[in-house]
């Protein structure tokens, strides 16, 4: 016992070192979303392409849905756009856009110019739905299951690596859940 206690400071320092070293590789921007496990917040907004068409949370229900928060003022959105075009062709998921605090004409032009991957984009120029979703920047992507419950929130750009690591396993799981009628 007497001899062991001599090593106590060393053990403590090593333990502290391990904790701090781990902290170095953690991403402080990585925040858990408060909305995971909750239903999609209620909203009633126009779509980007049709000022007369009002959409609500009911329009997203029934499928495995991705909601991608994007804007023309966001450079990272431009980076992820080609990947979204690929994802938009995937029949297993439905990709919707949430055009966040943007200019309608500029956003429409963006979609014309770069190809529109979305079923439709919700036009949220005041950021009200963004606020209810806890969006604090763009791009962000939410995964919503067939019951309309938010299962994941991802802040940052999607590319092939991110898609494989962050989304594919969850989407496979959701497809399985849907098949089993859960």
């Amino acid at each position, binding site marked *: 016992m007497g001899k062991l206690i001599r090593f106590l400071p060393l053990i403590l320092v090593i333990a502290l070192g391990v904790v701090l070293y781990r902290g170095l590789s953690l991403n402080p921007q990585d925040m*858990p979303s408060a909305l995971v496990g909750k239903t999609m917040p209620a909203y009633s907004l126009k779509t980007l392409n049709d000022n007369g068409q009002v959409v609500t949370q009911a329009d997203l229900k029934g499928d495995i849905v991705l909601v991608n928060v994007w804007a023309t003022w966001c450079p990272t959105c431009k980076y992820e756009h080609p990947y979204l075009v690929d994802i938009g062709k995937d029949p297993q998921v439905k990709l919707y856009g949430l055009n966040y605090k943007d200019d309608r004409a500029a956003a429409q032009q963006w979609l014309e110019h770069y190809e529109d991957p979305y079923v439709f984009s919700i036009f949220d120029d005041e950021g009200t739905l963004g606020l209810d979703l806890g969006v*604090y*920047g763009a791009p962000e992507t939410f995964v919503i299951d067939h019951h309309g419950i938010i299962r994941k929130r991802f802040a940052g750009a999607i590319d092939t690596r991110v898609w494989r690591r962050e989304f594919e396993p969850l989407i496979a799981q959701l497809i399985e859940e849907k098949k089993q009628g859960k």
Partner: protein
Amino acid sequence: MRLTRLFILFLTLAFSVNQAEASPVDTYEFHDEVTKIRFQALTKELRCPKCQNQNLADSNSPIAADLRKELYELLQQGKADSEIVNFMVDRYGEFVLYRPRVSSLTYVLWFGPIVLILLGIIVVIVIVRRKPVDKSDLVLSKEQQDKLKNFLNDK
């Protein structure tokens, strides 16, 4: 002389730094003083989700401006502080609180330091109260004293 100069330089620098500290200017008008104070208190308590080391009052980021606006509107609607805090937590998570609430997740955070201090005090008390070494063991016996004297006398 040189020291005084240095001191003056230091003072000027210190004050100029203070002046350079910019904070966003909103022009919100309040009907009464209490609401204004509550607004100021809440913007200090709530953290900006984008720029994590600033509160809503300090941050210039667009999201902080949006949240200040939302906060202002909630206050105008007559919402209580706790309702407003819940509103923010529901959307941005516990993270937005600079003083996290006491829950099973934050026990370590809240009580860890007290536990560590108590541990430290206990260690100090144990060390202090440990029996001092018996000095009689260190005193030479009569035999040893005589031997020592002999050695010294030999010289």
